[in-house]
């Protein structure tokens, strides 16, 4: 049992003026030259419940490296030393039309419950004016059909349309692999968000 002794500090909205306070070296580009792994782009757009683009959102991603290891003391898996350069954190804001883009690598599979492997995925946080608490979701890859079918988190989502909101769709743009991942804060195509 978790002992709850200290009251948690509540969240408040990030507001519309965060940009100069959340400047991040690297930002939307997670990959240096020496990082091992398949280069991918992640492109998407954020919408509100009326289908209007959200032009003042902040998107953060957190992911494992190509071997499925997180750059974090809690992850004790062995990884080839040449993969150490990858940190796996990215941050960017939506532009005046609600678009965002990351350049990264496709993550490997990481351990899941009961000796299973999770399907490759990226943890996503969404912040914006009018969003009272960090919205957490996951990005999965549309072309990982087999791994997705085995994934405990995805399999637990019964509604197919809702499950599809977590799947980034593979496209190609200028010979580069790009996954499209739109985020709907509200509405018919509302993205599934997790309580974590």
């Amino acid at each position, binding site marked *: 049992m*978790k*002992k*709850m*002794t*200290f*009251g*948690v*500090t*509540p*969240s*408040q*909205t*990030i*507001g*519309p*003026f*965060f940009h*100069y*306070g*959340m400047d991040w070296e690297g930002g939307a580009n997670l990959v240096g030259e020496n990082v091992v792994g398949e280069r991918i782009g992640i492109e998407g757009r954020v919408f*509100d*419940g009326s289908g*209007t683009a959200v032009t*003042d959102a902040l998107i*953060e991603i*957190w992911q*494992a490296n190509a071997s499925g290891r*997180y*750059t*974090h003391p*809690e*992850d004790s898996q062995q990884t080839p030393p040449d993969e150490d350069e990858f*940190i796996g954190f990215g941050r960017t804001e939506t532009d005046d039309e609600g678009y965002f883009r990351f350049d990264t690598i496709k993550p490997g599979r*990481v*351990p*899941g*419950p*009961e*000796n299973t492997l*999770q399907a490759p995925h990226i*943890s996503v946080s969404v*912040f914006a*004016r*009018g*969003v*009272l*608490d*960090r919205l*957490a979701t996951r990005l999965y890859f549309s072309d990982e059909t087999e791994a997705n079918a085995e994934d405990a*988190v995805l399999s637990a*989502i019964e509604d197919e349309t*809702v499950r599809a909101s977590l799947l980034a769709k593979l496209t190609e743009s200028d010979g580069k692999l790009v996954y499209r991942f739109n985020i709907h*804060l*509200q509405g018919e195509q*509302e993205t*599934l*968000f*997790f*309580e*974590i």
Partner: protein
Amino acid sequence: MSDAKFPLLHPDYKSTVLRAPKRPLIPLAHTISEITGPVYGHEKVRPLDNDLTRQHKGEPLGERIIVGGRVLDENGRPVRNTMIEVWQANAAGRYYHKKDLHEAPIDPNFTGAGRCMTDDEGRYSFTSIKPGAYPWQNHSNAWRPAHIHFSLFGMAFATRLVTQMYFPGDPLLPMDPIFNCVPDERARSRLISSFDLETTQPEWALGYRFDIVLRGRDETPMET
């Protein structure tokens, strides 16, 4: 359920109406993806990054303040070596942001953004000037109480927190829809710093204490 959790829809704060998800959040048992998170060393943070009054040639106008405290987890353990980012309006209530159209003066000596790392006891400290209140368009004659935005990572994706710190005794607090998005009074009161004579430096700056408690991550991730 923690008293710091609350509905994402709060119609008094108009921007929530089209931006709050309508479907309930789906509980996610923590895996390695949730109990890890970006952990950065000191190399990213320069020594003066926590002094917002020394980023330009001259000194910013306003009441000089020192804001400090500790970052703890739910069990009261210090959260060490974690990054805190802050940003705020200047003393006149104007953000250094192209989209802030409030007709208050820009201070050429104040940007209003800083960062620091917590120490081994979870302590942190920023030097700044007291931000001004400012009007916004939410409702007629709406004014935001003076506040400083805080962003914290903690040790895991699960512990991420973005919040706002307020000042004690601010008469705008009871009528601020954003502050009042937190329905539980005790939880809400944790957003208000306290005046602290110990942090106050004689002949120099007023001190405010703001302790931050990050939500937990599951102690053991789900595994065999």
